[in-house]
Structure formats: C-alpha cells, structure tokens
C-alpha cells in the first residue's frame, strides 16, 4: 500500500545523473506541462492535490501560489528553501544529494506555474558538498535543454542558480532567507507586505521548501486528484520523515500520510523499534520546535485513538496533549534520556540562533538557557520551573518571526508533561547530575499554570 512518489528511484545506480534520471521517467512532467498545460492549469492541479508546505508550517501550497502578485512588467521569483536546519531534520539534504534532478524538475514546473524566469535554490552553507551536486545537475539540465531560453521550444525561459547561506537557522524563515539572498544579515522582515507582494529585491516572490517543490513533479505527472487520493484527510500524499534518536534504523523514510505512529516506530520497514530493547520515553515528532510528547501520548491520542503520521492526528489534542507534524524531524527518546537536559540543549540552540532583532526572543532564549542549565546541573530552585513557564509565555507570539514560538514551545511542553522530572532535579541536586529520572507515569492531563 505504500506509495513512493519522491524516493521511488532512489536506489537506482547513477540516479544522480541526468541520463539515468531521464531513463526512469524524469522530466516527463516538464514535457507534459510545457506541451499541454497552462501555468494556471498547474496551479489548479496543485490546489486539487491538497499539497501542504513540507517545511514545517503546512500551509496549502496552491493557495500560497495564488497569492503571488502579478504587476505588469515586474519579474517574479521562486526561491527554494534548502536552508534545512531544524534540529532532527535532514530529509532535504537526502533528497538533494540522492536525486537532485527531482528538485530541478520541480523548480521548472513551479517556476512555469508562477511565471518566474529566474529562480534560486538557497542552500545552507554547511551543505557545500550538496551545493556542488546541485550545480552539476543544473549544468546537465542546461546542457539537455531543460533550462535556459525557450525550453524545448515552448517559449518559456528559466534560469536556475544555487546560492548559499553561511550558518544561520533563522534563514529558514522565508523573509530572513530573502534578506540573506540579498546579501544581508538574516533578520526577518515584518509582514505585511508578504513576499508574494514584496519579496526578493522588492519583487513578488514565493518561497517553498525542497520537498514541497519536489512533490509538484508527481502531482503534474499523475494529476492533483490522484495525489489527493493518497494519504488521509487534509494530509494528502507522502511525506519524508527524518528519523533519529534511540531507534534501530535512523534515516529518511517516505511514508504515506496516515500510517500509525506505532507502525512507524516499531515496524522494520521504518525505525525498526527501540534500540537495545529500551522503553520509549518521549518523542518529538516534527523537529525540535514542536511540543515533546510523553510515551503515553505518542502512539495514542488522549482520547485513546491511534495516533497517525498526519498533520491532523499529530496535532490532535492541541498543545495540551498533541504536537505537530512540523518538518517531519522525528526524534525518539528512550528511558535513559533526561528531558531537562534535552530541553536545555534545545534552548541553547534557540539562544544561539536568535537573530537578536526582537527583545523577547533575544533576551528570553538566553534566560531560558541559563535557568535550564542550572536546573540540569543541580543548582535550580523550585521557582525556576514557574519562571521558565513565565518566560516562554512572554516570548510566544511577541516576536516578528516564529523563532520565538519555536523556542517557547519545547520548554512549555517539557514542563507540561515532565514537571515531576524538573521537580526531581530541584529536590535531588546531587543525584540528578549522575542519574536519570526514568520514565514518567501516565497521568490524567491537567494544564499547568494555564
């Protein structure tokens, strides 16, 4: 039943090259689109497909595309967000490294749909070797007439180039990405105006994640309706999941949306169960910024239903008892892991990555890091737990970009579900530096300090 739409040919030798990719049916979607579809036809198919942004926010792609302004005589730009840096996420790197032409084909289709003649892939600076793979593939695409002037006699021109970041998580936020691509610091812009109206160089711009753009290829090939048949509810199609942590088989998996979380963790097709026969303690299902789930809310929702790998099911219960699909960065923790330490680690990340523009985020992330550090190292006080709760609440919603929220949510969720473990760190200042708290016991959910 499992459909592979993106990674179907990943195992084929030489799939990185144009000729092998072409032999496996590559660039058929471009041929079809340029021959028999108008740009609006593609937008329509993408709308019908129900495709939602794969970078984390899950916004419907077709709708995002329909917002692009089309003032006369002003060039528009499509930017591919390959700044993958959400902890726990490494799927875009995998896709670009293994099957670069899929992204290029998606870029051609999406650029055609949006009426862009100059598109860019913005890749994080650390992925320098992936950038070289992409540039090689782009050169092949030019050589074979898929890029450049008058592509395959259609009259459509497209230039595609890769540009690089230099180590800044914030540049995954679309307006920071645009700033960075203009050669500036990655400080997010205040919206509105939205990029669809005023983006790169003040021109109408769409920014989409690597996986989102790649998914346009099967949508054009098979049609939006066929794509929408795959998956469950408003979570259509397949999703790349980056699995890491205490599991037997970490790696990138393409799943059909709607399989159960239990199957994903324990089946040999995917994570292959917990490493060393340990027990599951917690799971962060969508990258470091989404709420952590205690073991009793991972495979089942609070209502006792099976938890599914889908946008809706993973967020079932809201932040009280649910989480988010996010970027699909699926991190699994076993009984030996310390939640306070993990939360401190994530807070340090957000402090390091805050661009410094908004006071609540700049000051708050550092403050949270310090308080969590003293809790973890046995110098914490009971009031610190409430203090953390207070700080995260004052960050959330009070910043220009979502980095503030992303920093607040993991702290809030850790306290919400693992408060006893935080208290144990205060009560056992010596023990907590050498020993692990262990598993949480299932409890009836009560909101903390709500």
């Amino acid at each position, binding site marked *: 039943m499992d459909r592979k739409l993106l990674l179907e040919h990943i195992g084929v030798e030489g799939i990185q090259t144009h000729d092998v990719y072409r032999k496996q049916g590559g660039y058929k979607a471009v041929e079809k689109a340029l021959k028999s579809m108008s740009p609006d036809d593609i937008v329509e198919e993408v709308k019908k497909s129900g495709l939602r942004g794969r970078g984390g926010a899950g916004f419907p792609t077709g709708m995002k595309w329909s917002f692009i302004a089309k003032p006369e005589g002003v060039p528009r730009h499509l930017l591919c967000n390959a700044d993958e840096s959400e902890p*726990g996420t490494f799927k875009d790197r995998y896709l670009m490294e293994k099957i670069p032409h899929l992204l290029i084909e998606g870029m051609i289709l999406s650029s055609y749909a949006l009426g862009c003649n100059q598109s860019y892939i913005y890749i994080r*600076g650390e992925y320098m*070797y992936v950038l070289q793979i992409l540039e090689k593939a782009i050169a092949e695409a030019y050589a074979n007439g898929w890029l450049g002037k008058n592509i395959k006699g259609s009259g459509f021109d497209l230039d595609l180039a890769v540009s690089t970041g230099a180590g800044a*998580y914030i540049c995954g936020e679309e307006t920071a990405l645009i700033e960075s691509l203009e050669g500036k610091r990655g400080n997010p812009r205040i919206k509105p105006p939205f990029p669809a109206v005023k983006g790169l160089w003040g021109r109408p711009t769409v920014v989409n994640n690597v996986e989102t753009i790649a998914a346009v290829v099967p949508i054009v090939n098979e049609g939006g309706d066929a794509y929408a048949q795959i998956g469950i509810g408003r979570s259509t199609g397949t999703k790349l999941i980056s699995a*890491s942590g205490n599991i037997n088989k970490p790696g990138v998996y393409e799943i059909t949306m709607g399989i159960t979380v239990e199957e994903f963790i324990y089946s040999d097709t995917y994570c292959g169960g917990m490493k060393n026969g340990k027990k599951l303690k917690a799971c962060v299902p969508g990258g470091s910024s989404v709420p952590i789930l205690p073991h009793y809310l991972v495979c089942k929702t609070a209502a006792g239903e099976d938890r599914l790998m889908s946008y809706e099911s993973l967020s079932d219960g809201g932040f009280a008892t649910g989480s988010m699909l996010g970027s699909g960065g699926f991190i699994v923790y076993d009984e030996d892991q310390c939640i306070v330490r993990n939360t401190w680690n994530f807070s340090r990340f957000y402090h390091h990555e805050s661009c410094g523009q908004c006071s609540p985020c700049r000051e708050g992330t550092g403050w949270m890091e310090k308080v969590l550090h003293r809790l973890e190292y046995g110098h914490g006080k009971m009031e610190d737990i409430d203090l953390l709760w207070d700080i995260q609440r004052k960050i959330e919603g009070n910043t220009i970009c979502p980095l503030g929220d992303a920093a607040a949510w993991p702290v809030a969720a850790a306290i919400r579900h693992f408060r006893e473990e935080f208290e144990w760190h205060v009560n056992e200042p010596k023990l907590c530096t050498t020993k692990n708290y262990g598993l949480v016991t299932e409890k009836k959910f009560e909101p903390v300090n709500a």
Partner: protein
Amino acid sequence: MSQENIQFPEDLLQEVGRQIAKFPEGMQKSALLSVLHIAQAHFGHLSEPVMDYVARLLHILPIEVYEVATFYSMYDTKPVGKVKLEVCRTGPCMIEGAEKIVSYIENKLGIKDGETTADGLFTLKTVECLGACGYAPMLQAGEKFHEHLTEAKVDELIEQYRNNPKANYLGL
C-alpha cells in the same frame, strides 16, 4: 598581511564573477555570502583588509560586509586552524554521544572548545545542528561531513588531516 597582498588569483576571480553573474545586473550584493566563503577558504579567515577587498570587488560599502561576516556563524573574523573540527552538539547528536566525542578531541589535541592547537593546525568548535541527525554523532571538517563517529574514527580523521590539511576543502 598588508593590503597589497590581498588579491584573489585569476581562477578565484573568475569564480567570483560566476557568483555575481547568478544575479541580475545591479544586484551583485547578493553574491556576498558566496564570495565571503571563497575569501575565507583562500585567506584562512576574514580579516578587515580581506573584508574591505570583498567590498571593493562587489562595489559595496565595507560596513555591508562587516555586518554580514559577523552575523553568520560559519565566518571567522579571527584566525583559526587550517582544519576546523566542528562537532554538532544539538539534540539528536547529544543523545548519541556528541559530548564524549568533544571531550575526546579536547584531550587528544590538548585544546578546549573554541581553541586552536599551538601548531595552528586544528581548531575545535561545537556547532548547532548540521542536518545529520540520523547519522550521529558527527562533525564537519572544513567542507566535509564525517558521520557515525567513534573514537577510532576521530583518530583516523585527525591523522588524515594532519598529513593533508587541504583535504578538508572540496575544491572548486
């Protein structure tokens, strides 16, 4: 290095030209991040004269270069070793023992996080998530990724780079 000595060789000037050509006329500032990567690889770090040179190449103000060079974590405005060992310390890598790898390297090279060995060969730095969570623990040496690290693998890497420090660059 005096100001006169700061000059890219011909092949790198061509590469700078290629980066600028990716953008429409007048938008050459967009190539800044790429050009700074080239400058850092060539000159070792981004000193003030190097940044001024980049500003001249791109016809922008020096301050526009400084503010970018100090914002992004991959740029070094102070001298570093020939090989930067950047160990990922975030979440999944921590679970898989990144801290042990860091202290192993610290002991082996006799330096702490952020320091450079006396011979100027190695700099150790802990960094945030490099997108290799499934293959943890990992480190980046220059432009190369090294995954599934063990102490034995770290030994091998250090030996390899000691013999050939240039091996940490991919080359153009």
